[in-house]
Every structure is written in structure tokens, then in C-alpha cells.
């Protein structure tokens, strides 16, 4: 009966309301009816309040018109989303020992390369000896470089080797919102207990803790409790943690107690390997030439590579065409253009000069003092790596230098990166900036 009322009600509202509003607010409501009551179920608090404030009166008008009592119509948050919004009691969580972990991410399907081998090795070592190797382990690097993959892979391995270990993975924002919910619902003790007794706690993107003092306070105690009982903590951050503003000093210093490792954007060979790997996972035969084409042009991060592949495969499937170089060029034209546009020789020179607080003209001059020569070498090395220009072209653009000078610059930077952490850091930041 009330189902029919609701259907009639929908028909009226649809006529009366702008289509966007109707589709956004009213159409997704699910209804539960019984005992003379009609409950409109909204996915969250905001929708519920919006409906109550704006449409409930009208809905009740219509129900009344159809012969039901006005008060019989109420709006609530749907039960399923209720469960998600509130953290389950500790006992229920214990039943799910690997909370939040995505089994698809394993060490075996992580494509290693120069840019991430250190992070890979450290994470694997920690997963084999949780609490004993490095604690905490902090992985940092730009978005889409594989931090989350390693985090899940570690969690999955810890769990596989010890089914009793209570491994918790979550995103920092989830930690924040669960804490707020717990405070609101007077469940903060259960919340504390839940996280302070984890066997391994893996938190993604801790930069989102910035400026949230209450959360940092709670996390600080969680952190101490876990470290005291030698439970493993693995964290990720989108930049070197000391660079994140709005994180308390005591927490920041603790982040550095264990091991901090960076993940860099993948080099060309790794990008090709990632593409070939993904294609294989999806059971699509990918021509190496096509992988080269994409890898040469998209240098920013792994998600961009995967996105390009996803788009390519979707188009191939719907058009029934074979994935050739020209097909890829055509389908990914806009995407590849964008990635090309950012990285020009001029752009690199400008960014490097700015980074080292030099003028471009000085950097391209004949002067050989270290403070100018090193940035110049850096800029040349980056140009070789990030663009398609030939060595003579690069030499020419850098104040008419010989191509052997360019080669020397590339080798110098490469060698220095192995020993000089500061220079390696500079290089990584510049690459990130240029390929973002």
C-alpha cells in the first residue's frame, strides 16, 4: 500500500522539482514500510537533513492527500550506512583480523625498478619481521607511485605468516572520521582499545593529519602504545614528513625513529614493465611498441599509466579494433598532449634555476663555479631523462655546449645521487614538480 503511495508521491515530486534536484535527493531514497509507517532511507546524515528540511513537508502533504497520516512518514539514515559510519565494537573487529586489507595488492605483483627498490625491500623486510626490523616504517613519495600497494602487500604478508596477527589498514581520513564518530557516540574507549591493541597498524597518507590536533593527540598515544608493545607501524606520506606543516613536533620526530624511505616516479624501463604487467593481468596482448609509446610520454605516476591503459583497452573493446601504435595515438591523443606540454627544455631550465634560486641566464652562462655548474648539470641530466631531445640539441640549448659535456653532466649527477642524499632529494623533488 505505502509502496504505491510512494510511487505516486515520486510522480508528483518529479513534476514539481528541477530534474537535478529530484535525481540527487529524492530518487535514490529507499523506502521501508510496515506497521503503518513509511521510512525514507537516506545514505547519510546530510541527505537526511536536506530531505527533512526541504521536501518532507511536501511528501507528507501528498501522503495525507492519499489518505495516510502525516506523521507516518519519517526520514532516517539507512541501516547499512549506519554500520559503516560507526566503528564496530572491538569484539566484532577482532573477528575480522585483516581489516581493510585489499588482497589484490601483493609483493609478487609489484613492479620493481630503481625508483622503488629500496621501498620495496624495506617493506618486505618489515613484513617478514614485524616489530623487529624498522619501526615505524615510513614510505613517502608523490601520489600514484605505489605506496598504498606496498602497504597492503605488507599487511597481507604479515597476515599470511601469522593468522593471529590483527592487521589494520586504513586511510588517515578514516582514522579521523572514526575518531569523531566515536567521540560523538561516547565510544572513545572502544576506539582507543581497538587501535592500541592492533598487531600491525598501516595508515595511508598521514599528511591528512595536518592541522587536526585532537586526532594527532590520539594518534600519538596509539603510536606509543604500539611501539612499546613492539607492534609494527607502517605509514605513508605524500612528501618528506618533516615538510608537512601542521603536524606536532613530537609526532614528527617519532615518525623518524624507524626508517624513512622515498619512492620516486618510475623510470622508463619500469614504466614499460608496469604496462606490460598490467596488460598481462588483464589478459590483453600488448605490443611492446605501444607500451614504449605510452611509457615515453607519460612519466608522472603509475595511476596515469594505468588510466591510459584502461582507456585504451576500453576503446579497443568497443570498437573491435586492434591496439596498434596509431590506434593508441588516436585514442590517447589528448592525454599524451597534456603530458608532453609540461616538459619542455625551457620549462626544465626555468624550474631548476628557480629551485636553486638562480637566474636562467646565469645557469646557461660560461661560469664554472660549483653553485652554478651543479644546477646546470642537474638541468641537463633532467632534460635528457624527461625529453626526447638529442644530446647535441641539449648542449646547444644550454649555452652552446658540446654533447660530451651533456653526457658528462648526466653521469656526474647519476653518480652523485648514489652518495649524496641531499642531491638525490633535490633531483626527486624536481622530477616530481616537472611531471606532476
Amino acid at each position, binding site marked *: 500500500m505505502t509502496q504505491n503511495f510512494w510511487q505516486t508521491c*515520486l*510522480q*508528483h515530486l*518529479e*513534476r*514539481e*522539482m528541477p*530534474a*537535478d*534536484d529530484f*535525481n*540527487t535527493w529524492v*530518487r*535514490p531514497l*529507499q523506502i521501508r514500510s510496515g506497521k503503518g509507517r513509511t521510512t525514507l532511507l537516506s*545514505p*547519510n*546524515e*546530510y*541527505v537526511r537533513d*536536506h530531505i527533512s528540511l*526541504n*521536501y518532507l*513537508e*511536501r511528501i507528507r*502533504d*501528498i501522503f495525507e*492527500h492519499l489518505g495516510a497520516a502525516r506523521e507516518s512518514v519519517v526520514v532516517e*539514515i*539507512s541501516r*547499512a*550506512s549506519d554500520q*559503516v*559510519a560507526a566503528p564496530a565494537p572491538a569484539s566484532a573487529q577482532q573477528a575480522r583480523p585483516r581489516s*581493510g586489507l*585489499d588482497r589484490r595488492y601483493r609483493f609478487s605483483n609489484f613492479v620493481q625498478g630503481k625508483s622503488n627498490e629500496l621501498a620495496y625491500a624495506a617493506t618486505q623486510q618489515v613484513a617478514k619481521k614485524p616489530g623487529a626490523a624498522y619501526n615505524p616504517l615510513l614510505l613517502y613519495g*608523490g*601520489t*600514484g607511485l605505489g605506496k598504498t600497494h606496498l602497504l597492503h602487500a605488507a599487511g597481507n604478508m604479515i597476515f599470511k605468516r601469522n593468522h593471529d596477527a590483527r592487521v589494520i589498514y586504513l*586511510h588517515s*581520513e*578514516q582514522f579521523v*572520521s572514526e575518531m569523531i564518530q566515536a567521540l560523538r557516540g561516547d565510544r572513545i574507549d572502544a576506539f582507543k582499545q581497538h587501535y592500541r591493541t592492533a598487531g600491525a597498524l598501516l595508515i595511508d*597518507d598521514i599528511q591528512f593529519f595536518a592541522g587536526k590536533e585532537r586526532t594527532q593527540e590520539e594518534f600519538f598515544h596509539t603510536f606509543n602504545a604500539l611501539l612499546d608493545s613492539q607492534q609494527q607501524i607502517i605509514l605513508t606520506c*605524500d612528501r618528506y614528513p618533516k615538510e608537512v606543516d601542521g603536524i606536532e613536533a613530537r609526532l614528527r620526530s617519532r615518525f623518524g625513529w624507524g626508517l624513512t624511505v622515498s619512492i620516486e616516479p618510475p623510470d622508463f624501463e619500469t614504466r614499460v614493465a608496469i604496462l606490460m604487467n598490467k596488460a598481462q593481468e588483464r589478459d590483453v596482448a600488448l605490443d611492446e611498441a605501444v607500451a614504449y609509446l605510452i611509457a615515453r610520454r607519460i612519466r*608522472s*605516476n603509475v*595511476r*596515469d599509466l594505468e*588510466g591510459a591503459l*584502461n*582507456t585504451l583497452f*576500453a*576503446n579497443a573493446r*568497443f*570498437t573491435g579494433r586492434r591496439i596498434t601504435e596509431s590506434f593508441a595515438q588516436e585514442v590517447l591523443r*589528448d*592525454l599524451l598532449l*597534456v603530458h608532453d606540454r609540461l616538459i619542455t627544455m625551457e620549462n626544465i631550465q626555468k624550474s631548476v634555476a628557480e629551485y636553486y634560486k638562480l637566474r636562467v641566464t646565469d645557469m646557461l652562462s660560461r661560469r664554472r663555479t660549483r653553485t652554478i655548474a651543479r644546477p646546470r648539470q642537474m638541468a641537463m641530466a633532467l632534460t635528457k631523462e624527461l625529453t626526447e631531445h638529442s644530446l647535441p640539441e641539449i648542449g646547444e640549448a644550454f649555452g652552446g655546449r658540446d654533447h660530451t659535456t651533456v653526457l658528462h653532466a648526466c653521469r656526474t649527477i647519476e653518480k652523485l645521487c648514489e652518495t649524496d642524499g641531499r642531491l638525490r632529494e633535490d633531483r626527486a623533488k624536481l622530477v616530481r614538480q616537472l611531471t*606532476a
Partner: protein
Amino acid sequence: MLCSPQIPLQLEPRRPDRFEDFVVGPNAVAFHAVQQLLEEPGGILFLSGPQGSGKSHLLNALCHAARHSGMAAFYIALKRLPEEAAAGLEGLQTLDLVCVDDLDHVAGNPVWEQALFRCFNEIRDAGGRLLVSSSQPLSSLPIQLPDLASRLAWGVRQNLQPPDDAGKLEVLQQRARTLRIEVPLDVQNYLLRYGRRDMAFLLSALERLKDAAFADKRKITVPLAREILGEQSGGADAG
């Protein structure tokens, strides 16, 4: 707006946008990609295309199809929503499909970007499907949160071409069929020639024609269209 208790029972509800009413034209690949999303739990699709290219139609049609096959679907149009509404993106991971329309209206707003980022993560973790539309391609949106940009770039990207004049006529004819009204060719051409030529305006003109014809029990003719356009051309909102 909604305070009148009177309900005009004789009016039929507008039929929700459906796939079968979509004029595919040059957009076959994008059209298939949208439909395919239902078959792909965890799928992400970014759909770009200028105003009037049919984005909202496809998003709503997908929601309709999802509900038809028993899935829970949510559509949210970000255009015209205040910042507080970002809280409306919470808890959506319990749904099978979330369609976010008009991303371009909130790109660059940190509150919305954080909310979308979180929504994205929750949906993906839960294996839901996400369809995001924008009038500009992803690469030209001023998204400030790199984490959000890279996640949106992860999925399949499709671009819709707007209809040319012939395409617009086809859309008008299709909509006339769904509205179950007879719109003679000269009226269609009149609309295209003398009114604003964006799809939102043309379709709203059609709705008005229908209502006027219905109310005054008149046939839909060029003179009626002239009256309607006269009324509309002043203050119509492109939407």
C-alpha cells in the same frame, strides 16, 4: 515552491532519462563505456564533454538501469550545491553505483576535493562503481589535490562530442517521442533557427510547448512555438 498542497493528478511524470532515449551519434564508444560500468564492480569512468553533449542524461540513465537491475544507485549534481553539501558524499560506499555530475563546478574547492577524494577511496575499497562527469577534460580541470587528480586519472576516460544541428534535431525528435507529443518538422526547424541553440534551452522549450499545448488544448505549431520562444528568450537559464 513546494508549499502548495494541491496535486494536479492529471499530469504524467516525466520519464527518467534512459539509455534507449539517448541519441548516440558519434558517441558510440563513450555510450558503451557508460553501460559497461554496470558489469564492472570497482569500475571508474571519467566522462567529459561540453554542455549539452548528454552527460547528465547518461549518468541518470545509468542510475536508472542500475536500479532496474536491483542495484542501489546515487546521482549527485554538483552544480548549484553549496559547500556544506560536500557532507552528502559520505557513506556512499554502501551503494553499488555513484554518479557525480558536473565536477568542473567544484574543482579547485578544497572542501569538495577532500570529500570527493574520500568518497572515491571508500567506493573503491568497497568495490562500488563511480562515474564522474565534467564539462572539461580531466587535464584542464584546476584540481588542487593531486591525490584526487591521480585517482580520477586511474579509470577509463571518455569524451562526448556535442551534437551538430542534425544531431540536435534528432535529440528533439527523440525527446518528443518520449514526451508523446507530435512536433512537426517546421516547428523543430523554427526552434533551431530562432531560439538559443543549446540543448538545455531547446529541450526546455519542448517541455513548455507540451505544457502550453496541453493547457490550451492547441496543436503544436510554429505560431505556438513563436509565443513560447518569445516568453523564454528573455530569462531562460541555460542550466
